[in-house]
């Protein structure tokens, strides 16, 4: 017990417990008015307080579903459903994941490419950087439908339009991080390369790139999370292709709050797994590059 309290487990459990209690209480409070209306219509009177609380936690379309309802929905829609079925959350998560990963890969490549141009050419910094920053001031919700509908009109549908929206969001942290990272080498490290008469490519490959790797991973952790948001937003604009965004959208059309919350939690869990995966890759690369443990 003492060990449990000394470690990280106990604080995490306490916070989880607090959130759970707050959530259950909020569910009673938010669902009570509608439950009273339902009970009046059904002619139910003298419902005991305990029964009433149980009713607020068991509605079909609650304003705020209770945690166990969301958990049950997640269980039924993943483990309890055939993965090839369109009712399976795992199926939709897979669609969103593939768009996320493609968009993330494209965004990282674009971001690194732009950063390399900016670092090696002053003119490109002045000409590109304002546009790169401006690109992120436009609400993605406004751009996404235009990209999806526009590309759909020329016959590009499916994964690519969603991946492009992911790319649009995820290249930005990579550009900013890598411009910083590629500029970290100190003057004497660059002078050293000059005394060897190194070519610009050698300076890049042997000095600037390895020096920037820690910045790349920091950027990619941000990038992969917003890639997922980009993919979900892309799916909101086109509900034919499936994906977690489509589940959110159909859930809100039909008032299926439990379905919305289940899709939200799956999306959040997916983002967490992706960030953890990038963090794992970072640790492996750091170890290979001799970082202080």
């Amino acid at each position, binding site marked *: 017990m003492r060990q449990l309290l000394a470690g990280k487990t106990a604080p995490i459990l306490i916070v989880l417990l607090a959130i759970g209690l707050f959530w259950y209480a909020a569910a009673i409070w938010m669902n009570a008015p509608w439950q009273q209306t339902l009970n009046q219509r059904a002619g139910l009177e003298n419902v005991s307080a305990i029964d009433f609380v149980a009713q607020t936690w068991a509605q079909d379309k609650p304003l705020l579903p209770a945690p166990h309802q969301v958990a049950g929905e997640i269980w039924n829609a993943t483990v309890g459903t055939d993965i090839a079925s369109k009712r399976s959350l795992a199926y939709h998560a897979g669609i969103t994941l593939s768009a996320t990963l493609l968009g993330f890969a494209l965004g990282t490549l674009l971001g690194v490419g732009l950063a390399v141009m900016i670092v090696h050419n002053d003119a490109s910094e002045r000409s590109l950087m304002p546009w790169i920053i401006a690109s992120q001031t436009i609400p993605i919700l406004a751009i996404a439908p235009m990209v999806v509908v526009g590309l759909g009109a020329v016959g590009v549908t499916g994964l690519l339009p969603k991946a492009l929206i992911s790319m649009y969001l995820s290249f930005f942290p990579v550009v900013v991080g890598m411009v910083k990272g590629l500029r970290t080498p100190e003057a*004497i490290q660059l*002078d050293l390369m000059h005394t060897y008469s190194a070519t610009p490519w050698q300076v890049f490959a042997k000095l600037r790139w390895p020096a920037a790797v820690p910045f790349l991973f920091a950027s990619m952790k941000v990038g992969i999370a917003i890639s997922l948001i980009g993919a979900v937003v892309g799916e909101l604009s086109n509900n034919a292709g499936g994906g977690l965004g489509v589940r959110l959208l159909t859930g809100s059309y039909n008032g299926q709050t439990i379905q919305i919350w289940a899709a939200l939690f799956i999306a959040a869990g997916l983002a967490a797994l992706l960030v953890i995966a990038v963090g794992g890759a970072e640790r492996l690369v750091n170890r290979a*590059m001799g970082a202080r443990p």
Partner: protein
Amino acid sequence: MTELAPPSPDAMAVVRAQNLGLTFPTNDGDVIALSDVNLTINKGEFVSFIGPSGCGKTTFLRTIADLEQPTSGTLTVNGTTPSDARLNRAYGYVFQAPALYPWRTIAQNVALPLEIMALTDKAERIARTLELVNLTGFENKYPWQLSGGMQQRASIARALSFDADLLLMDEPFGALDEIVRDHLNSELLKLWARTRKTIAFVTHSIPEAVYLSTKIVVMSPRPGRVTDIIESDLPAERPLDIRETPEFLRLAARVRDGLRAGHSYEE
């Protein structure tokens, strides 16, 4: 044409500066880093440059290395321009800080110039130069696992690995404590005796300059210029306690006088 040409006066000169000047333009007006420097460094010499900050000693070393461009006068390295000398890999440069790449092991750091110059027999060169600086056995350590003195020795190995005949050292031991510094100074002398390289060594320590050098160049600031060139008559064999001998102290006094004469206390 069959007659033997008389040996040219430049045959022994590795570095030759004539009326060399370098002016940095700044917002507050021009800064004269070097003014009218005339100096020859001959093959096999150990030449120290000593003077207060701003006297241009580091700038002169960087000009030899083609890291700065002179604005007047001429400078030749191995009879060519500094730029050609750099392309011909005429020199190895040791900076004030070790400047080891932290993601490379010691052996990989020593291999860096070998990779860039596409030289062969890397393993043999790494082993030989690490042995010269007494770092055998540390090949697979990363820089952070080594002390400051060991890191600087690794950077010397890196400068030696491609067999340039000229070694340019810019206050390489300036950041180290006295004891480590004494040790590295005597190691450097042994290394110089073994390799017969020409060494140009920037320092602000009088004992270091006198202990190491065959020739001491005293410089002074505003504008950066050479005020005295002292040929050392100390024997080639120099144990550390040579620093208590009258000859050593006499040389040190002359260097100190030179520094005092060149330094203005008006400001």
